[in-house]
């Protein structure tokens, strides 16, 4: 029969609607204001005593809280009122001291049965939640220059070991120029490089005096190094961000050599930048000679044993800046060790110092910057003061066996120690220097305002469209309106499922989708009216209207989708947010405008004799 959907099709539509409603639902539950407590030292546990003291503090301060949770050593306390957030943070921070980081957070209130389905609310972009956005760029030129300089150092040693005589090795732009006395030696070197250094492309070049060999890193090798540098920096930045105690930070690679850092809720950019951009947090120093002057030495505790200390020289050999890589491995005898690579500058310093210091011990000092909060009474009012203090502790003290170069190893460790040491060495180091190229801060009140304005414009725009459709297309308009509302629910559900971030331009995308989603229905309805005018029966007109409009709708939507995908691929920031909602909107609107309205039309009009249709226009 004409215009009847089979039962399975109706059921399928109902199923899609139910699923959409389910996954969109979490966005209806407003999040609770909360404070989040994390131990300052990574990996530390949240003890029952600590939780007890948080509870006590909040109760004493008369702040109502509920629903405490502990996840991976992080405790979350929900509060009844948003206004309580700041006092709660201050009170808890004071009670716990600087061993813990207390941050403001918004705890989702999604019911458990929804959570168990994997549903959750959309995340809000910085322009809606307030916070800081940084874009940092890795200085590849300097990093690669360092790499080449390192190779120069390394090749010198290797050639000497192989007994291949060279006149000199020069760094010339991005390649190394090796000069030899005669062609035979050069060929010997060439063969050696083929075997041992496949990462170089080699070109022979003869000058009047010398037989030269030009070594240039292959594209592939350059890419590997750069990739490593960005990844390493990403890890380091992540570690540093964790120090900030931000509730839900985002640290992401962007493009070839950039890193995006987004810190929701953070307002103090200066502090954040200091921690992100901090340079030296590792120091290599020699142990003081017995009987050395107290003025030239300092005493530091060990990181994993507070009662053990060692006296070190004040002179710093090099810092964590120079560490380009550190990894734990096993030596020939299966003993754990840590291999450390330094950049050229650090390596040269290391050689210079350790040449004179064989059989003495060298320490690796770990430098941590921690906030220390003090409370003072000024004019009868309590004033909170936070200062950054620097804490240094020894993470390794090992005997120097031989002169060290730009890559050396630390042995005599337990396996667990080795991997921890490697991690600490790496976490302190940026593989390549970085600088800030973009920075945006959005105040929390501005974010709230943006949400309100966004929601308001969606509502008003929606209302205007609903009225217009109802006026022009009557009963069919009503069905299109229902489809439009469902479309928004589906769009929200889809965004929540894939974990897309909602931004202000994203809301603009939703608004635009609302305007354009009705287009498909307008096309269909206009076609139905036309068919009626051409003298077809209502049932046939519906059938033909949907069929004929379908090709047009498909063409129009596919091309728009293509543009949206290009937007997403080529755009950054706001453009991307807009592209995401626009393309999702196109997909969902195709379903609601074509399939859903057809189902409704079929239910209302299908399978019976009709004299006319309530579709407006002069029919």
């Amino acid at each position, binding site marked *: 029969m004409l215009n009847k959907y089979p039962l399975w099709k109706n059921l399928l539509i109902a199923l899609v609607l139910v699923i959409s409603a389910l996954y969109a639902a979490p966005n209806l539950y407003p999040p609770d204001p909360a404070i989040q407590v994390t131990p300052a030292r990574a990996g530390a546990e949240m003890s029952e005593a600590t939780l007890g003291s948080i509870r006590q503090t909040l109760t004493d301060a008369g702040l109502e809280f509920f629903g405490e949770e502990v996840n991976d050593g992080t405790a979350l306390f929900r509060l009844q009122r948003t206004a309580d957030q700041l006092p709660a943070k201050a009170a808890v921070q004071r009670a716990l001291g600087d061993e813990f980081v207390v941050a403001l957070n918004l705890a989702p209130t999604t019911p458990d049965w929804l959570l168990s389905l994997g549903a959750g609310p959309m995340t809000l972009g910085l322009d809606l939640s307030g916070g800081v956005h940084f874009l940092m760029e890795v200085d590849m030129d300097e990093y690669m220059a360092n790499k080449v300089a390192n190779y120069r150092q390394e090749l010198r040693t290797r050639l000497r070991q192989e007994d291949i005589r060279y006149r000199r090795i020069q760094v010339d732009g991005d390649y190394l120029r090796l000069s030899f006395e005669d062609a035979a030696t050069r060929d010997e070197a060439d063969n050696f490089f083929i075997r041992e250094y496949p990462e170089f492309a080699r070109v022979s070049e003869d000058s009047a005096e010398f037989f030269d060999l030009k070594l240039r890193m292959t594209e592939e090798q350059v890419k590997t190094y750069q990739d490593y540098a960005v990844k390493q920096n990403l890890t380091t930045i992540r570690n540093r961000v964790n120090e900030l105690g931000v509730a839900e930070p985002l640290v992401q690679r962007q493009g070839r050599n950039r890193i995006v850092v987004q810190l929701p809720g953070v307002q103090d950019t200066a502090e954040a930048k200091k921690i992100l951009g901090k340079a030296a947090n590792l120091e290599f120093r020699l142990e003081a000679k017995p009987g050395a002057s107290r003025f030239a030495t300092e005493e530091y505790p060990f990181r994993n044993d507070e009662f053990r200390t060692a006296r070190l020289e004040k002179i710093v050999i090099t810092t964590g800046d120079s560490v380009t890589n550190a990894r734990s491995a096993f030596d020939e005898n299966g003993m754990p060790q840590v291999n450390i690579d330094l950049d050229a500058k650090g390596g040269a310093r290391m050689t210079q110092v350790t040449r004179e210091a064989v059989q003495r011990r060298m320490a690796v000092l770990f430098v941590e910057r921690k906030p220390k909060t003090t409370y003072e009474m000024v004019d009868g009012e309590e004033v909170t003061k936070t200062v950054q203090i620097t804490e240094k502790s020894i993470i390794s003290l090992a005997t120097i066996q031989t002169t060290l170069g730009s890559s050396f190893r630390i042995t005599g460790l337990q396996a667990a120690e080795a991997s921890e040491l490697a991690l600490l060495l790496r976490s302190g180091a940026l593989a390549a220097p970085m600088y800030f190229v973009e920075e945006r801060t959005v*105040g929390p009140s501005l974010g709230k305002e943006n949400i309100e304005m966004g929601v308001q414009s969606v509502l008003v725009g929606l209302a205007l469209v609903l009225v217009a459709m109802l006026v022009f297309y009557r009963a069919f308009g009503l069905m299109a309106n229902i489809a439009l509302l469902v479309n928004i629910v589906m769009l929200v559900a889809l965004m929540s499922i894939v974990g897309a971030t909602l931004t202000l331009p994203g809301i603009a995308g939703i608004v635009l989708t609302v305007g354009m989603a009705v287009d498909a229905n307008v096309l269909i309805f206009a076609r139905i009216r036309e068919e009626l005018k051409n003298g077809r029966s209502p049932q046939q007109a519906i059938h033909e209207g949907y069929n004929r409009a379908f*090709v047009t709708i498909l*063409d129009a939507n596919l091309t728009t989708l293509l543009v949206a995908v290009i937007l997403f691929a080529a755009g950054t920031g706001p453009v991307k947010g807009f592209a995401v909602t626009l393309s999702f909107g196109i997909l969902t609107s195709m379903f609601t405008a074509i399939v859903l309205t057809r189902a409704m039309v079929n239910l209302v009009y299908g399978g019976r004799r009709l004299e006319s249709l309530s579709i407006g226009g002069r029919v």
Partner: protein
Amino acid sequence: MKQLDFMKARGIAMALSLILVLGSIGSIATQGLNLGLDFTGGTLLEVQYDQPVALQGVTDVLEGAGYRDVTVQNFGSETDVLVRMSEAFRDDLGLEVLEVLRQQLPEDNQIRLERSEFVGSQVGEELRDEGGLALLMALAVVMIYVAVRFQFKFSVGAVAALFHDVVIVVGLFSLFQWEFDLNVLAALLAVIGYSLNDTIVVSDRIRENFRIVRRGGAIDVINESLNNTLGRTLMTSLTTALVLFALMIFGGEMIHGFAVALMIGVLVGTYSSIYVAANILLLMNISREDLMPPELEEEVDDRP
């Protein structure tokens, strides 16, 4: 409904389009665009006062304090002030400027920093290039898609219409020196999407009518197609314009430029799908033969 003879006015329409496009290009060439921070690089601060202040006073104070290329404007409300300067960003620049501004204020007028943005000039340049590239890519892909899906002459028409719309929107932004930022660029790309939508719907009808309507020349067929789709074109433009209207009024200052650009785009796009694309088809002598389904093609394809 009576048939409207759209194509009668095609000479006038073409002249109008030419004037608009040339005027836009002229404006872009002579006065350029008022590029936003996203593209120029520099520093932007948004501050909120308790009470309205004189903008000239703010400019004077900042220039007096030694900042270069300072522009100050209201942002959305009288108490909201946007400060832009070419100063490179420093950690404490925001606080520093706030302090300078606070000094000239009476006791009862407080000031808060709402937003600060810094974009390096390198990044700005890249965003500019990327944006331009995205526009070109969108046009190219659309051209290919339409050529494959319809016919070559249609794809020329569609791309000409898109080019027409984009140039005019950019031209108006140049003429009135409205700020052109990333959001406006996004709107521009959305204009491409929207205008394309319109053009495709019309082209689709033209193709269909060429195949089924046996009488009359190309002009008649196109006229009939435009009349067929007129109701839909107006209705869709209306609903889209309605939501954009809501966005313009209630969306706030940060997406105002976006809404304005898209609004202009929708108006121009509606016009261009009627006149520009169809006109190009006529100029290229579109005929029934161009659109007859190529019946022999399959045989040709089957040959090894």
